[in-house]
């Protein structure tokens, strides 16, 4: 698929989710996987816009690739290096706490990482490269 490049603005999250929807439709993913992939891409992009670029702008590129039995969505940005995998995620104990005792942070990355079958990150050429992968149902 052609790469989508959008300014890093929360107003463009819809475009990113729509791009993921197109990619997922082309790949024939289930509705559930489509949603999880949209949520993961949305959360990673939100994190890039809010914390990576700190609201100062920049660009996010999104690329969908179908390879064999998987669909990969890759998000790239030029913000400071950030590997979502090293972010401390809510523990089982945190997740069972009542709302008044909940920490605000970490939920987005948690949902992103939980929602996809495989998540990879690398820093490459001064860019953060976030790779979200879901496996496709095998054709009979």
């Amino acid at each position, binding site marked *: 698929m052609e790469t989508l490049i959008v300014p890093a603005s929360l107003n463009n999250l819809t475009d990113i989710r729509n791009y993921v929807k197109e990619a997922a439709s082309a790949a024939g993913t289930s509705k559930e996987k489509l949603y999880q992939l949209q*949520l993961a891409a949305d*959360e990673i992009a939100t994190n890039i816009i809010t914390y990576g670029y700190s609201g100062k702008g920049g660009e996010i590129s999104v690329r969908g690739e179908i390879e064999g039995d998987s669909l990969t969505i890759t998000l790239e940005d030029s913000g400071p290096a950030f590997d979502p995998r090293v972010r401390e995620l809510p523990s089982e104990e945190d997740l069972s706490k009542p709302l*008044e005792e909940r920490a605000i942070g970490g939920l987005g990355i948690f949902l992103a990482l939980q929602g996809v079958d495989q998540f990879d990150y690398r820093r490459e050429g001064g860019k953060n490269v976030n790779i979200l992968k879901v496996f496709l149902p095998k054709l009979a």
Partner: protein
Amino acid sequence: MSFQLSTDAQQDEARITLGGELDAAAAPQFKDAIEQVAVTSPKRLVLFMDELAFLASAGLRVLIFARQKLGDVDIYVIGSKGPVLNTLKMSGFHQSVYLQDSYAT
């Protein structure tokens, strides 16, 4: 699908109906609605989510904000289903709210 929201505060109860896609761009509208209904000091917050198609963590954070802002109110989530309900469960929020299919009006 854009985000839609309507509020209705009456006596001890504040009702907010959410529809469309609740992402980080839309979450401030939801937060504003919580602040708006907080003025009436409701005892119950009822969130109608039948028509909510997408819920990101920014929306979940507004629920935490609601709890902080409104104090010890009962929070009802009505009609959430599919992946939105799944997100509420995955993040453990279902343990802090009353999940119901419908609500007597």
